[in-house]
């Protein structure tokens, strides 16, 4: 490190950071410590660290997973009003499938959440999607009825939109309620009070036009992608249906 220091003498004054330099691999072996021991120490430390983490993970993972599932469930139920149950469908080779092929990783596939009625009819599909809004990615989930093409509901999962302005996309009830009123898709955003009364219209929020339009765009884009898939038909729900129900 010395030679660097000397060669960069002109830079030294600019470095005010306490430099925690990992100089382990640079120090010549003048000391008695052997490489083997260094590696061994790190290996043991690593193993211990790993063990500790694994142990705690065993303990926390169920809690975390449960919470996540709970959150997802709440979100799906919110955008698919009246549902009490849903199934996850994966997009496999352009078709929906209620189960994954053996050994496949869940995260490799896009998915939707489908709610069935008692009779096995598809009540609605919940789709989650994120796109750039005003500040950063806006992640939403929305419910959609594939038979009528109407929206069932919408919930913002994650957004960093401007507080007091862009965050009205989930704080302004009047805006959010429009998505629960069953508008037809594809949606069009209009300035509040300037609409022509079409069933596809969503009034944007004054002062937060971009954020409002982002929500509308996300839904439209998601549907552009999913409509063809959904129109092919949704395979019947897997066996997880409550006992006694018969698939038709």
């Amino acid at each position, binding site marked *: 490190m010395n030679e660097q220091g000397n060669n960069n003498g002109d830079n030294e004054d600019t470095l005010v950071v306490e430099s925690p330099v990992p100089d382990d691999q640079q120090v010549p072996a003048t000391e008695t410590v052997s490489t083997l021991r260094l590696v061994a120490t790190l290996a043991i430390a690593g193993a211990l660290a790993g063990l500790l983490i694994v142990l705690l993970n065993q303990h926390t993972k169920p809690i975390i997973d449960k919470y996540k599932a709970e959150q997802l469930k709440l979100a799906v139920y919110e955008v698919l009003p009246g549902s009490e149950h849903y199934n996850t469908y994966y997009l496999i080779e352009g078709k929906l499938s209620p189960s994954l092929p053996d050994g496949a990783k869940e995260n490799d596939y896009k998915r939707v959440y489908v709610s069935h009625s008692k009779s096995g009819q598809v009540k609605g599909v919940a789709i989650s999607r994120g796109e750039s809004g005003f500040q950063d990615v806006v992640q939403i989930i929305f419910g959609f009825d594939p038979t009528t093409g109407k929206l069932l509901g919408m919930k913002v999962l994650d957004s960093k939109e401007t507080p007091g302005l862009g965050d009205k996309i989930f704080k302004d009830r009047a805006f959010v309620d429009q998505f629960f009123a069953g508008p037809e898709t594809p949606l069009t955003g*209009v300035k509040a009070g300037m609409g022509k009364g079409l069933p596809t219209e969503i009034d*944007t929020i004054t*002062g937060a*036009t971009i954020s409002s339009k982002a929500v509308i765009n996300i839904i439209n884009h998601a549907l552009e992608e999913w409509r063809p898939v959904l129109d092919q038909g949704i395979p019947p729900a897997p066996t997880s249906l409550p006992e006694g129900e018969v698939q038709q």
Partner: protein
Amino acid sequence: MTDSIVKLTASPHVRSDDSTVKIMWSVVLSLLPVIAASIWFFGPSAFFVLLASTAGCLVTERLFGSHRGSLADGSAMITGLLLGLTLPPGFPLWMAFLGGVFGMAFGKIIFGGLGQNIFNPALVGRAFLQAAFPVAITTWPAKSGQWWSLQGDNFALPFMSPVVDTATAATPLGHLKFGDDSVVTPVIDLFLGTTGGSLGETSALLILLGGIYLAYRGHLNWHIPLSIFVTTFAVSGLFFALGISQFPPLFMLFSGGMMLGAFYMATDMVTSPLSNKGCWLFGFGIGFLVVIIRIWGGLPEGMMYAILLMNALVPFINRATQPRPFGSVSKKQEEAPK
């Protein structure tokens, strides 16, 4: 040396008539018609807003300014007036005052006062207000009734929200950007100022005249507004011709804060580049950014951000556009066959 009457100074022994103080006050002077017009259009509200923002600047300069006489140089006055001119007429006065204080303190005094700042203090104040009170600053009440009636809740209590009960009107830029019927306000209206908008956004004509007066007096570098206009016109014209944007180029030039920004904010000597070459680059950058932000950005108006961003680049531009000393040849020329 009994007969020595003389004082000893270094050459040159004569000076041009220009002086910083003179420049500053003639800028204030050239703003007077614009101010008068804004009061004519918006009534007493305009006057109060300008008063509040200017008071914020003057008070701050007086309290924290680097030297006692610094109020007399007129720079704080300019900052206050310019800040006021970028605000909507119904803006709560306490916010206007706060903007003046912030712009002056963190835009100028903290850098050491006159001549030392990096960002245009008026725009620092404006950017602060835009970020702090995004709703209030984008609320343009529709003109209502008599001339003397207030435009919105000017007298909202300090730190309290303004109560807007009147109908709001969009600015020409907002109309075109967010309106569904895409109203292109006729350029003649923009030119004469018979539109809604912030105090200084209207009456392009008066600003143009004031700017030309200053340029004629040598108190602003005409390269900057010219390059901004040329760039804006060309870039927005290109996008308009290609059908990418709905903004006609002339509309682009005369709407929003373009005129005020180009003539009075971008040309702030302290925060613009030194050399004319640098000024061209600077103006080009502003013109380009403003078109980009107006067409694709989240806000209808981009002049303020375009200028602030280019302000930040000015030290870099100054570095890059060091003049070539007389008689020295660039490397390229040296290599060229003789």
